């Protein structure tokens, strides 16, 4: 009960309250460490993203109700600040594999048919670590019908 009172009552009762002790000694440090960690991770991620720019075209595929899959010429391009050896891969499509050796940019086009979202990855050719990734999303159009006209209703 004291804790509840304390947490809503503010800092005045810190010295008398066990939850004040907890907040002061554990909660704030945890928040501080988490902030530093996630901030550093975000900065690292930005640096990583800056290193290789991956572009896909198209980014979206809209299917009508009669179309079971998306068929598209997927154009992939990437640029890098430094020369790298990279391999292009498509998730769940082991047949798609194209590599570049010590290049700072690359272009590739392939005709693909896919039922679900398609994720394209650039991986380091030696370590296979993921360098960049983008996804082509599939949007399926629903079936539509006419809404009933109802002028008799108060809110229509």
């Amino acid at each position, binding site marked *: 009960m004291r804790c509840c009172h304390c947490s809503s009552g503010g800092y005045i009762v810190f010295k008398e309250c066990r939850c004040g002790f907890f907040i002061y000694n554990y909660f704030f440090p945890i928040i501080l460490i988490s902030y530093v960690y996630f901030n550093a991770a975000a900065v690292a991620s930005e640096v990583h993203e800056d290193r290789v720019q991956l572009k896909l075209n198209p980014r979206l595929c809209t299917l009508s109700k009669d179309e079971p899959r998306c068929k598209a010429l997927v154009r992939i391009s990437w640029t890098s600040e430094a020369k790298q050896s990279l391999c292009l891969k498509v998730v769940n499509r082991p047949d798609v594999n194209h590599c570049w050796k010590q290049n700072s940019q690359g272009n590739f086009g392939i005709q693909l048919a896919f039922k679900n979202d398609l994720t394209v990855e650039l991986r380091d050719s030696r370590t296979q670590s993921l360098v960049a990734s983008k996804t082509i999303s599939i949007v399926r159009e629903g079936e539509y019908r*006419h809404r009933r006209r109802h002028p008799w209703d*108060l809110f229509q």
Partner: protein
Amino acid sequence: MRSYITAISYTIILATCFTTQTTSAAENCAPSHDRCIEIGQLNLELAVGLGAKTNPIEDSDPIPLIFVPQISYYGERFFIENLDLGYTLFESVNHSINLIATPDYDRVYFHRNSLQNIFMGNTLKAREGTEESLIMNEQLSAHSSRDRNITYLSGLDWSYGLDHFSMQLSYLHEITGEHHGNEFRFATAVPLVQDLWVLSATIGATWKSAEAVDYYYGEKGIYSPSSAVNPFLKLGYETQLNNKWSLKIFGHYERLDNEIVNSPIVSKNEVLSLFIGGIYSF
């Protein structure tokens, strides 16, 4: 009863004739059209604003219109529009014929105020202190515990629409075994201004059979009304503010038939509804 059987017969005939045409009509519905709705999607809207509907029952408070949820769901043929359930027999770009079940809206006047409360005040139209008024008081007290249950009507509903012009005609029969009455509902909405905002006028009427009027406004041995026609006029303004919010303003005036107004429990000859507020689409 005979009329109900007739209505069912017509329904079956229409269902047989038009069922095969429904699908092709639905295919012409473009998603971008504001009258087209996605099949299988639950649509929820909430009207938030200031508004009220006057109550013609003696000593009754107006019915507030502050939060009014609007729910709709459309299957390939089946649909729900708030409290209305429907099955589409025929649908084209402009026309639709539906078999519907819809509540009897007169009950809203009694829901917030029981008859017990209504009769506590001086609701009698006979002169006070006279022998006539004393007899009526006794008789009304005897019936004051009578509640108006939720009743549902079912029947055929035809609607026509072209852009913001629309027309609707429904023939309904009470199916919950309370009064076995019938009802015709007619309305037509005409756009007066059609721009980024829409100003429209709606005129219509509701015809109620004697059984339906008597169930709500009659009192056994005191007042037995016959059928009634309530015409109405509505002016509405609506504009889309963004993809979630729209602004709606309307005023709805309904003139009550003398068969209803002459009831000892009714004190007004009109029902006025006003609302100004936003409609939020979830």
